[in-house]
């Protein structure tokens, strides 16, 4: 499928990086985005594509420990760095449990990006205020929940 949508050109390059703790090497065009590489080359579809232009936050991953948009990150910018996607977060993590317990997921399309952004917030600020949660998630759109339960889930994980 990606053969049609993302034709490989002759311009491929071996790019090494650490993905969820494992040394990884892919042969891709350096102009591929990290999002295209994750989803269409590595077939890791946890990271979602909503807008592919930085507006929705669905593709949020950590690069060298900070949240960025995978859709606005070229593979040349990932070389030698370390990437964490939602697949790299333990399923039993208190944040993920809190999302389930609070019913913070409806269609689920925004969830991976929000979980990664909130995971980073909690690693920096273990007990964030509601204001801090809202600021840290201001780049993540959700079209279903109205955000109330998402914010409640992050605050709950912060109390644990």
């Amino acid at each position, binding site marked *: 499928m990606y053969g049609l949508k993302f034709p490989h050109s002759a311009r491929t390059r071996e790019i090494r990086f650490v993905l969820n703790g494992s040394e990884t090497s892919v042969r891709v065009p*350096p102009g591929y985005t990290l999002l295209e590489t994750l989803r269409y080359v590595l077939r890791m579809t946890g990271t979602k594509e909503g807008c592919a232009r930085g507006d929705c936050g669905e593709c949020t991953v950590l690069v060298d420990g900070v949240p960025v*948009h995978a859709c606005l990150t070229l593979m040349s*910018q990932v070389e030698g760095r370390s990437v964490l996607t939602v697949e790299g977060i333990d399923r039993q993590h208190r944040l993920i449990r809190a999302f389930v317990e609070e019913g913070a997921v409806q269609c689920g399309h925004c969830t991976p990006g929000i979980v990664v952004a909130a995971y980073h917030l909690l690693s920096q600020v273990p007990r964030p205020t509601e204001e801090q949660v809202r600021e840290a998630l201001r780049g993540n759109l959700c079209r279903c929940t109205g955000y109330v339960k998402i914010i409640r889930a992050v605050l709950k994980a912060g109390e644990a």
Partner: protein
Amino acid sequence: MQHLADVEVYSVRTLREALELLSSVKGLRVIAGGTDLIVQLKTGVVPKTNLLDVSRVDELRYVRFEDGILRIGALTTFMEIYRSELVRRHAPLLAEAAFTVGSFQIMNKGTIGGNIVNASPAADSLPPLYALNAELKIVGPRGERFVRIQDFYKGYKKLDLMADELVAEVRIRPPGEGYVGHFFKHGLRRGDAIAVVNGAVLLRLSPEGIVRDARVALGAVAPTVVRSPSSERVLVGSRLSPEVMWRAAEAVVNDISPIDDVRGSAAYRRELSVNYVFMTLYRIARETGVVA
């Protein structure tokens, strides 16, 4: 949207390599954070070209204070600027603006150099840089040169920058004792919004509340960011009374030429400019105890 699979990307680690490639390879376009350029390339706003990825040129990522000048490397991100104690101390206006740039994801990737060279009239770093009389250090094959921020912009997205040059550093001479100011921004929602109008007001007040120096800068209301000399003239020499603040705020319409676009009409932008300049002046007057 197009993919960039057929684009060649040259990755460099040093400023010297970057300048050499810019001079020797034709048609290269610099990419820093890529938060503007990747969208523009993918949507076809900017024609596809090969890229020079400078995002790893770490020698251009720093905040330093030397010889009385605050120096910010062009590749410094807005998150780094927002968090910097030096920026908060010497240019708090810029720290305030940095916090409003997009989302945390954008702040972590978007650089001040990219914001300056992308040259959107709504760019949030620019009103503070205009109010602070910032200067840019530009480097190229002919050496380095310095340009005042006001002189860098020749018109809508027209820059005093050659294709083989890079913006290397932003320099700010802290205005000194007695200066108080704030950044303001009106977006169509509270977070992750491009400014409909933004701006910065920086005043030096005497202990009696007389304005000794005034700098009023506005964005998204003209082809480039502008200072408002009309407003500044009303302020300088006067006591910061509510009446003076209104006159100064209303005077900004003389110096702006807003347009209608997706984010708002020209009339709406004029009204926002007046109201926000008034509110920001009032905030400064209250914080300094000039009004109750």
